[in-house]
């Protein structure tokens, strides 16, 4: 196996195949990595209910095999979870997870040689509290009655315990303020080609629809991970048909195009930007959650944004935010975590992206997509 090859595969374990998403290939690949000691630990989601799962780092194969699979209403992020732990680890990762992990790698907080990144195709995730409200307001169903969820042909479908499928188009939901988190709407990384191996259901055809995963090997590590799972008897794979490969490429193109449209819709040019930023930040309570959760920040407790800032200052915009804007100019990956955790609902990702979009475009630099050094890391000394 080598970089660039594509396969369709599924778990050989019946229960994993039935419970896991798309044939349980990712779960089984992670379990095999653990069993064959390719890694010491694996990150998985431990499911609490349809709208809650908690990421755990585990060396227990059973815990991996019993993990949650993919949940759209669990917008977690794994980069900070494995940072500074010196782990030999394998983990599933959405595009933004992958980007955060790579940026932590550039900052020496994660050893990428020891990190096996299983990329997951991602059309976006939803905030669980918003999802619960959406179910009651838009679907007229009780969240407790939901048994499963899926996205198909632009529709978000919730299956209730009585077996009924309830579908509404994502466009309609998002028009009403529900659906995906804002940052997911304008994200353009739908197939994480920056991971070691990219996995998802796009491109699975015929009888295998819903029962298999399409994989693309992006690195030597990705090849090792897949081969290891095959050799361990955890998965079966076969070559995809041409139709599937074409279909996957088409979906990717359409999804990326939609993301680009959202980007243009949200980031319309504005006058008086300073006043806009001041207004948006005026309710900040200095909790520091946006820094703590930021998957590209690796400064720790002592950092410029916190050291230059004092709650006793009476500036109209705090030094904390000013320094963060500068730091994130070439580092923000638009994952949305900062907006998710802001206790006063400041749309922080949108603010950071307003700084980052023109900078990253000008510098032709996309953080987390490869190992290119961040432009602001470069220091040229005068001769």
């Amino acid at each position, binding site marked *: 196996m080598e970089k660039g090859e594509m396969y369709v595969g599924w778990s050989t374990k019946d229960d994993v195949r039935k419970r896991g998403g798309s044939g349980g290939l990712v779960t089984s690949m992670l379990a095999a990595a653990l069993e064959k000691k390719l890694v*010491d*630990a694996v990150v998985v989601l*431990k499911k*609490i*209910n349809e*709208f*809650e799962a*908690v990421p*755990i*780092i*585990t*060396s*227990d194969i059973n*815990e991996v095999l019993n993990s949650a699979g993919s949940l759209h*209403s*669990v*917008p977690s992020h794994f980069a900070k979870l494995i940072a500074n732990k010196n782990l030999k680890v394998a983990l599933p990762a959405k595009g933004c997870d992958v980007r955060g992990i790579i940026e932590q790698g550039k900052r020496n907080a994660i050893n990428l040689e020891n990190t096996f990144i299983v990329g997951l195709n991602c059309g976006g995730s939803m*905030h*669980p*509290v918003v999802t*619960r409200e959406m179910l009651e307001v838009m679907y007229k169903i009780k*969240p*407790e009655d939901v048994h499963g969820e899926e996205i198909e042909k632009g529709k978000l479908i919730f299956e209730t315990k009585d077996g009924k499928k309830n579908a509404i188009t994502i466009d309609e939901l998002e028009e009403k303020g529900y659906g995906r988190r804002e940052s997911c709407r304008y994200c353009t990384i739908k197939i994480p080609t920056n991971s070691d191996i990219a996995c998802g259901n796009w491109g699975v055809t015929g009888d295998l629809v819903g029962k298999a995963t399409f994989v693309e090997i992006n690195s030597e590590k990705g090849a090792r991970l897949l081969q290891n799972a095959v050799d361990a008897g955890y998965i079966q794979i076969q070559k995809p048909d041409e139709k599937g490969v074409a279909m996957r490429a088409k979906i990717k193109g359409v999804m990326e195009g939609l993301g680009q449209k959202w980007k243009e819709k949200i980031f319309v040019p504005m006058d008086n930007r300073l006043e806009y930023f001041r207004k948006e930040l*005026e*309710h900040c*309570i*200095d*909790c*520091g*959650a946006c820094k*703590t*959760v930021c998957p590209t920040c690796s400064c720790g407790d002592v950092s410029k944004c916190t050291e230059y800032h*004092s*709650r*006793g*200052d*009476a500036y109209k915009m705090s030094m904390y935010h000013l320094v963060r804007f500068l730091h994130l100019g070439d580092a923000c990956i638009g994952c949305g975590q900062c907006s*998710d*955790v*802001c*206790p*006063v*609902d400041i749309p922080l990702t949108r603010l950071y992206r307003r700084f980052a979009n023109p900078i990253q475009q000008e510098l032709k630099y996309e953080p987390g997509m490869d190992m290119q050094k961040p432009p602001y890391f470069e220091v040229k000394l005068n001769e």
Partner: protein
Amino acid sequence: MSDNIYSTICPGCNFGCGLYIRENGSLDVDFRKSSPANAGKLCRFGMSLPKFFNPAKSMIDGVETTMEEAAKEAAKRISASKGSVAFLSLGNTSNEELLAFQKIAESYLCTGVNFEALPKDTYQTISIGIPYNEIEAAKHIVLFIDPYEQYPLIVRRLLLAKTKGAKITAVWWKDLMLADENIRPDDISKLALTQDSIIISDFHPLSDTEQVKNVLSLAKNAGAKVTFLKPFANSTGEYIISKDTKQKSLAQLIDDINKGTIKTLFALESDIAALIPSDTLSKLTNLIIQAGQASSTKANIVIAHDPLYKKKGTVINNEGRVQTLGGAGTNGLEALGIIAGSKFDFNTLHESIKKTIGITAVDEFTIPKYDRPAYGAIQAAPKPVEKKPALIDVYNPFMWFDLADDNDFVELNLNTVRALKLLKGGTLKIKSNGSALEKKFKVAPVQDNVLLTGKSMGIEKGIITPVEISR
């Protein structure tokens, strides 16, 4: 390797913020985005929890011991001091522990607040607040708190209410950013309330009961709703459980210790150093503390039990929402059982709590239906603030007391800065009750002659302390 993860509730106040505590060598806070009270969002205190959860060690007279031995020794000393023992719990632990504690404490229970000074028919209104989504849907919201400093997670609810058209009036010593109208407490006569108004105030051990009565009276006269936010993780549960029990106020407890009628104090999960003067505490023969985290207060006996996030049990938030703590630990109940002389059964206590609340199962997504009885007319006589400099303590949560924070400044207005010729980056001298200190200051839209502090300085006498200020 496998993480120990606890889905729990923040102990910082009674807002009921859900979060994960992750134990993996170190302690980390993780955001529980599905939590109905806070959607995973946390304030500065919540983000500081790894520092707060500094494990306690069981001790007898300064010598480390086991929890069981400490509890046995506590039982002995409590028994020997019969008639001069007081029991204090501010509401920082599970309902089940509080119920057990109350059974032990029947002779002298203090929950820190002064219910005795308030009309009995207002207990329920004070104890159980209004659901946050009702606040979001309000047409007019009146704040008798500084939400940014005291209960930060209410800010987003207020901002959401504003986007839906609500008008926000702040009755506060400082202009609040989110308020459409700012009224100083001295100008309360300018406040116009209607049946569409929701008043948000707070109720805690330092609350001026006349001011609480005043707020209740304003609401009553206008037909407005009122909700009291509270500072301890399970204040609401504490008040529900103890509502029919004779209680002593904190002032009474301090007085009784000073008089020598109380010689032994048993405090359960209560940050007493923040509320009881050290010279009063020094008069006790025995100070017994049962807690889940270390405290700077020097106690004769420390009974170290599980921290809140490891406990089994329930708490009730400001809205009346019943939430589970997420752990499996019951050693707090075991210790209380040793002191009581008979074991407490968790399940029996839990069932009793459910019966009291009127629920059959704990479901954090459904707020139980509580009676919200009307209360009668109230006579209130709030003291007017004197027209001379006063230090006003707005800090919360109380548990900041032992934690390092960057709140070490006072807020004052530009008039005061100019009158005193204070220099930018300089300090302000504050004198009160024979104590003097120097503090950094921050210019803010604060009322003339008022200093606001978000950090206890040790010179305060209640919420409002007259002070002399100079350069």
